[in-house]
């Protein structure tokens, strides 16, 4: 029974490539990925392309509408809104870009471990997780931030910690589906250690779900970061930041809406982009997100 077909290939790379191709071929994936890449590239190059100094005030030009010199107008201190919108995502992307992988890694690991252990221990620990999830996130975050301060060195671990907890749920649910399968029993019967089983048998099968979940967590985290800035617990002035800009400009919204519109459009386009990409990725990987717990 010898069959000669399908030459040897680097299967993992080929799969990644075909998934990417699938994502891009979907309208949601193409638009989403474009928006995300656009924002990331912009965040990287913006310091060199902005027309003005982001903190240069101009008392003669306060709250002027969009015009040739200031495409998006100026704010209440006469600062160029376009400049500040272009720069305003840098902090947010930096913080969430570091915190998201940390959250997915620790949440994913703990979730897989709970799923593998199973039984009563798993049940009890999950109820603890549920209890934690039932508290409003902003309350938990504010407690930590008020205690430890608002710098990046506090925000990253705080966000990573809180946003890892819902990942535990998802990773555990995905693991439960895999643990019941015979290849895990086979590995146990061979006598592999728990860590080997997690690394070789479980992780590769849960990774797809974690990737999609990670994308979703990233968008939630961006929203959380901007909310904190809006409330004054995130980035401190005069740094340009979307959340902070919305907070500053909202008082003048009735007669100078451009101060709010710029950062709002920037923030929502990034979040919509991430969500669209996550949707397309889920479809390309064959994960039905509708069936997963919406936490």
């Amino acid at each position, binding site marked *: 029974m010898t069959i000669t077909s399908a030459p040897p290939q680097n299967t993992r790379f080929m799969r990644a490539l075909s998934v990417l191709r699938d994502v891009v071929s979907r309208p949601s994936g193409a638009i989403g990925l474009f928006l995300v890449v656009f924002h990331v590239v912009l965040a990287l190059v913006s310091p060199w392309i902005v027309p003005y100094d982001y903190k240069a005030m101009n008392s003669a030009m306060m709250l002027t509408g969009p015009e040739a010199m200031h495409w998006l107008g100026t704010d209440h201190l006469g600062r160029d809104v376009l400049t500040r919108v272009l720069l305003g995502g840098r902090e947010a992307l930096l913080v969430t870009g570091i915190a998201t992988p940390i959250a997915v890694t620790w949440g994913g690991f703990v979730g897989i471990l709970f799923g593998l252990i199973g039984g009563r221990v798993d049940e009890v620990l999950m109820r603890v997780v549920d209890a934690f999830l039932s508290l409003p996130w902003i309350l938990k975050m504010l407690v930590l931030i008020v205690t430890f301060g608002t710098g990046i060195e506090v925000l990253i671990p705080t966000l990573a910690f809180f946003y890892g907890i819902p990942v535990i749920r998802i990773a555990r649910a995905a693991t439960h589906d895999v643990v019941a399968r015979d290849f895990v029993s086979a590995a146990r019967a061979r006598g592999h250690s728990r860590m080997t089983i997690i690394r*070789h048998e479980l992780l*590769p099968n849960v990774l797809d779900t974690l990737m999609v979940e990670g994308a979703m967590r990233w968008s939630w985290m961006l929203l959380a970061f901007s909310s904190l800035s809006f409330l004054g617990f995130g980035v401190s002035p005069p740094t340009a930041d979307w959340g902070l800009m919305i907070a500053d400009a909202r008082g003048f919204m009735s007669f100078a809406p451009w101060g709010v519109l710029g950062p709002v459009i920037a923030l929502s386009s990034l979040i919509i982009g991430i969500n669209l990409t996550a949707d397309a990725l889920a479809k390309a990987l064959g994960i039905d997100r509708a069936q997963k717990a919406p936490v």
Partner: protein
Amino acid sequence: MTMSLIDIRNISVGFTGKSGATLPVLRNIDLTVQAGESIGIVGESGSGKSTLALAAMGYLKRGLRLMEGSVAFQGQDMFACTRTELEKIRGGELALIPQNSGQSLTPTLRIGAQLIEALRLHSDVAESQYPDKAIELLGQVRLPDPAAIMTRFPHELSGGQQQRAAIAMALAGEPTALLLDEPTTGLDVTTQAHILELLRDIARDRGMATVYVSHDLGAIARVCDRVMVMYAGEVVLEGSTRQVLKAPIHPYARGLLASIPRLSDPRLPVALDGRPPAPGGAGQGCSFVDRCALAQEGCRTMRPDLERQPSGETVRCFHHKDAYQLSLTGSGAIPASLDGSAQTALHLDHLAISYNRPGLFDKFLGRDVAGVPTVDGIEITISKGETLGLVGESGSGKSTILKAIAGLLPPSGGKITLAGGEVLATEVERRSPDHLRKIQLIFQNPDDSLNPRQTIAQILEQPLKLYFGLTGDALYQRSSDILDRVRLGAHYLDRLPSQLSGGEKQRVAIARAFAAEPELVLCDEVTSALDVSVQAAVLDLLNDLKAKQGTTYVFVSHDLAVVRALSDRVAVLYQGRLCELGLSADVYGTPSHPYTEVLLGAVLEPDPDTAPTLSADDVVELSPPARGCPFQRRCPRKIGAICDTDAPPWQNGALGHSIRCHYSIQDLEALQREVTKEQIT
């Protein structure tokens, strides 16, 4: 002019492949079914038989389209029907019982509600008569206490009962034709035989035409008048059941028959090498050419036509006159057997396993929830180099015992010892690396036992790294050696399981087990997920590995013929208790335990001249009785009260043959000989 009930003319069905070309799944198929006739469509997975059955209802799965031809039911073109017309025909005059019909019942609705819905949609019965009619239908499918069944949910019924309920629903519309897709696959042998008898009787009483789609030639032999053999989307042979199963004139049909293990033949079946072309992959020649022993140069370049023979069959083969040369029976090897002086490889000492474990709350209250253990009193000694077959119906505890030996399910009593009386730790985590290596397990379904995200190389590396610490070149070398041993080449190493066929995947699973250089290999239904021709190849491979390496097997299967083909000794289990143990010739001969007798009687052979003997009800018991003989509730040879109260003793015959029954071996033999005599006269 009499019109055929179902008239399928020259249909071809295909899908659009990645390259944009249309790939055919069915090619130029003609099928006519007359009223009251019973037709079997047989073939291996991927042969297009289910697609054909669905096409007869005017339905094609997503992505498939009708390329040419027509399908008519009672003269009405099914593919030209409007939605409302189709809704009226389907489930009414023309009913389908889908594969795994238990799952086609709605889980949240009671059986009664589902039946009444079927009556409302498809019958002329007055509304006030629905419940009575529903009970009548359930009675017709021989369900005990139909009124009670009406109020049950599908999950409260056994697999056989679910199948009967599905049949009752199909009968609600008074169909003139019934299509059945694998009606007995997944059912126990006794249930299977009962369901087929039921379907036969119903079809005869109502004058209903039936179309069976099945890979099981035994079932087809029992119920069909005519058989159509499909291969790679085309009909290769059609004729009466007798012609097709007794003296088929197509090489594929002969190969298929030879690959079926039979109860009457202790030899290994012959494997049909190779695999069918992928959909649309058949070249311009005969689709079977790559696997055909009679193939000649002309077969590659020209596609044979279906030719009607003077004897009545139609066949698609240039060389059908020579087909008789191909053997129909297993000329395969006699299974390698053990020499008398064998040492003990494994001893199960009063093994008991219980799934009910007392919870914290029960312990606190001092309650005893364990009750009657699921598996109890298993006492078997397995010698080195021997193959022990474990047979029994689902729920008999066969797989549970394997899991206990593998350490995945700690027993609640008794112990397991290895050669030299070494006691094996009950939990896998406490076993020494040497013990772990010596015992390897092969699972039923390779789709589930191979990690879909690992390449074949990564799968084989696992035991090699763990037990032998191999790395680098040595690891690669050993991996490819092992693949060679299971008759796959080193070029498979970089592939993923999804790129392999079912048989190849199971070979990889076998290779992984043998990579550990085990002494004892536990095989859990290893061939039941495979096509028969592939099954024969896997059995042959297992036998070959055993002959070369002297491995000991414990081979679990529900298929008695498969067990016979491979085993030296056989143990029969019912409800987790041993009924009979002995050399396979003894267990499969007379005398046997009444349960073995029932099982053997129900086996369907691919031979229209044999009929199953149905001596016990096909009820499914969920738990063993607390006292007496485990088989007391179904035994056709029950003596009386003694069977209910006293556990039967072991009756010992010659050559280690033992039967657990209140009858002595001599009495059983006398009783069973009588039956055989009756059948002859």
